[in-house]
């Protein structure tokens, strides 16, 4: 009975460590307070599909290039779109699946850019579905 409780405490500690520790560790490693984001629309289809979870890493103003997929803050919350124009003080993005460009944003609004693996954004399919459901 005693060993059962010890095992239970160990399992709870492992699960707690994974659930709470993983985002903290990821936040430290990617140098951003928002290391993960769920894709809640199809505006970046087919590169990023609705319901996927992407990883975000911090980016400096001078590191932002045309073609990067960035995450920025706006009045509706957060947006993940591709950079299409770079200016001195602001930049313009566009969703791959959209016909119109977005309204220009300031560099200060950028939270980060998507983490890429072999040149493609690192995304886990379906892991962001809970966030998508909550958003709807």
């Amino acid at each position, binding site marked *: 009975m005693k060993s059962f409780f010890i095992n239970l405490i160990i399992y709870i500690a492992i699960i707690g460590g994974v659930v709470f520790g993983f985002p903290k560790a990821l936040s430290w490693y990617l140098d951003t307070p928002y290391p993960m984001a769920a894709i809640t629309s*199809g505006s970046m289809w087919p590169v990023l599909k609705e319901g996927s979870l992407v990883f975000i890493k911090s980016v400096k103003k001078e590191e932002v290039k045309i073609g990067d997929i960035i995450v920025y803050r706006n009045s509706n919350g957060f947006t993940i779109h591709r950079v299409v124009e770079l200016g001195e003080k602001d930049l313009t993005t566009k969703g791959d699946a959209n*016909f119109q460009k977005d309204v220009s944003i300031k560099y200060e609004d950028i939270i980060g850019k998507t983490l890429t693996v072999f040149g493609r954004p690192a995304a886990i399919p379906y892991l962001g579905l809970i966030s998508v459901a909550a958003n709807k």
Partner: protein
Amino acid sequence: MNIFLEKIKGFSFSQWWENMIGEPLKTWEKIVGVVLIIIFLLVFYITLDANKFKATVHVVEGESVIGLNPTTEKLDFGDLSRGTSAVRRVELKNDIPLSTYVVMLKTGEISSLIDISKNFFLLKPREETKIEYSVYMPASAEIDKIYDGRVYLFKIPLIWLWK
């Protein structure tokens, strides 16, 4: 033949289990076994009874180009150019005296493009409804590519809602 029939007649699962494992089935094991068999049969029935539609759309060059191929056996959205959309409707009727829970799943490349008007809903006995499947072709769709996939329509009878 007679020997075979006699063998089947005399077959006892409990006896067979005891011979294989070396101890008889416990009561809770029997209950779990029966529950698992019922769940398996239910899943088997629901899967077998599901409607499976092949869905397809062809991306064409140009503006406002729509070409529909009205077939009944599949959800064919025909030829669509970027920025256009097409809608297909399916009528669904619940013929059984049980309320049925309807769940639809989309698979394949077309799944991100199809929007289903309603999903995860209850259909009362003898109730009819129309489901609209619409496809919008985004700016990032590849020209001359055929996006296809399947739509599975599962009808889960809710036994506790017998009317």
